[in-house]
């Protein structure tokens, strides 16, 4: 029986692409004054990666590049979605970023606190109590 490692390649690529993309989107959105620039860069990188996936006949490489390219294209949309999370207070705003400072002034739901930075306590939490529970 032959062993087929294509699935493992896909799994590792997907996991790393999601993980790194997840961290990069949060960091880049928090620092960017204009999110259209990183969105455009992510789209360009995604399209270039897909081009290389299309032109290689090595299945392992084609798989990894194919997954990475689509992830980069999705990351462009995630940068936009991250900005909406900031508006809703579901992710912390960066007061030193003028775009975030404007969001903080316009949206009462926006906050500089990361309300998810804690362990679950097993009961519902009020908006007043939530900031006091942040532990790390």
């Amino acid at each position, binding site marked *: 029986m032959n062993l087929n490692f294509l699935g493992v390649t896909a*799994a590792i690529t997907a996991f790393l692409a999601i993980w790194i993309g997840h961290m990069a989107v949060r960091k880049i959105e928090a620092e960017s004054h204009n999110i259209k620039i990183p969105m455009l860069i992510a789209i360009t990188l995604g399209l270039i990666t897909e081009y290389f996936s299309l032109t*290689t006949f090595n299945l392992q*490489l084609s798989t990894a590049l194919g997954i990475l390219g*689509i992830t980069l294209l999705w990351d462009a949309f995630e940068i936009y979605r991250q900005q909406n999370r900031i508006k809703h207070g579901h992710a912390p705003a960066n007061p030193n970023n003028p775009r975030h400072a404007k969001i903080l002034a316009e949206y009462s739901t926006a906050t500089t606190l990361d309300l998810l930075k804690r362990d679950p306590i097993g009961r*519902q939490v009020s908006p007043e109590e939530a900031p006091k529970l942040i532990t790390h």
Partner: protein
Amino acid sequence: MNFFGILIGIITFLIIGLGFPLVIRGERYFGYWAWVYMMSAGFLIIIASIFVQNDWLSVIVGVIGATFVWGSTELKEQAVRAELGWFPFNPASRKIKLPFADVIKKWKAPHL
């Protein structure tokens, strides 16, 4: 032109999309301590993909496994989101109790 990679990329994207309800419902019905089971299932599925001879199927099985592993690292944060009211909250008393849940609760749940 080799369309294998780009089509696999799109299929991967759709499978990862299924990870969202997996995390939301996994936490709601089983609790965040289901992470041990979800992560173990993920690694077993990835190992199983090695024995799938068909390339398309091997990749699909591998990506499903990766989605489970990633989902397991999201369960703890999802539990906090439910406590904050961003998602429906289901108390522990109404959750399905998994074996060794009390032991797993003492371990630090992974989060990336």
